[in-house]
């Protein structure tokens, strides 16, 4: 079912349904971030002290990885618009690989936290840190699942220079996951 939007000058890339979902997700993350800021304002000492225990090098590496994978997805979209489904598939595979790397790195970090006995109940900062990063972690898993389906279809030749909505749809979601991480990294790891 195709619906023409009222001002179709510059339609959103991909399926409109994913944008409703992206909007909902951003609202959820937005409220989570606002809650973090609100909680921090009344527990500044706890937040500052606990924040220092985080490994910013990991966080920085995570950010680089996700930004690079976002670039890779953008190249995949350009490739399919140029008509090359193989190149599109390769770029998506690259993005998937980087996503996997992110998961590995983040798992190592979670493992170290757990080994130190840090849980959701340790203190308010760690509650937010674990909830936010784990919630985002799950989004990366979900984004990779979506990209994997798109990648499979790209290699199978289901997309073309005329029909690339699916690539844009998956790509839009992945960019959202990347965007949220950048804010999360700044908020939870850096801003002191």
């Amino acid at each position, binding site marked *: 079912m195709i*619906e*023409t*939007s009222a001002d179709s000058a510059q339609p959103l890339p991909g399926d409109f*349904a994913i944008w409703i*979902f992206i909007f909902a997700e951003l609202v959820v993350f937005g409220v989570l971030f606002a809650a973090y800021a609100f909680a921090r304002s009344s527990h500044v000492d706890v937040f500052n002290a606990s924040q220092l225990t985080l490994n910013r090098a990991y966080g920085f590496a995570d950010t680089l990885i996700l930004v690079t994978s976002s670039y890779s997805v953008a190249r995949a979209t350009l490739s399919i618009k140029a008509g090359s489904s193989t190149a599109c598939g390769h770029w998506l595979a690259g993005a998937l690989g980087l996503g996997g790397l992110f998961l590995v790195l983040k798992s190592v970090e979670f493992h170290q936290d757990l080994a130190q006995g840090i849980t959701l109940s340790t203190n308010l900062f760690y509650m937010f840190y674990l909830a936010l990063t784990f919630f985002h972690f799950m989004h990366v898993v979900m984004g990779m699942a*979506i990209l994997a389906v798109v990648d499979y279809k790209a290699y199978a030749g289901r997309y073309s220079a005329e029909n690339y909505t699916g690539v844009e749809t998956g790509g839009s979601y992945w960019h959202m996951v990347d965007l949220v991480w950048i804010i999360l990294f700044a908020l939870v790891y850096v801003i002191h």
Partner: protein
Amino acid sequence: MQQVFTKAMARNIFLGGAVFFLAIYLLLSYDTWQRIPERDHADKMTPAVLRGKYLLDTNDCIGCHTINGEGAYFAPELGNVYKRRGPEFIKAWIQSQPSGVPGRRQMPNFHFTGNQLDDLVAYLQWLSNIDTNNWPPNIQG
């Protein structure tokens, strides 16, 4: 150029969103399940406490009262009644029901034995030590 909005994508978002949030909830539930015994001192649930709990359940106490705010709002909170009233008052109160005061809310007499009253009080004492994030706000429940 047209904006695309397909039913298939809307359906996928529904299914994907459902599975995604269910998975997160299940993981959180697992953590909660591990934490509850320390918060409510599950190790202190003696046989007497368990017998008292069974009496409370099978007499539909929450049909009038609340336990930690859950139940009916006809009669007082039981989660902290042990701290509010103490064991002897509770036993005497239960035995003296119904009050029969005209027009006042009535509690039935359940014809509990002395041992059963002790079990009930043991359960109410256990309830009063659960970590409920400082709820209720005061002793009145």
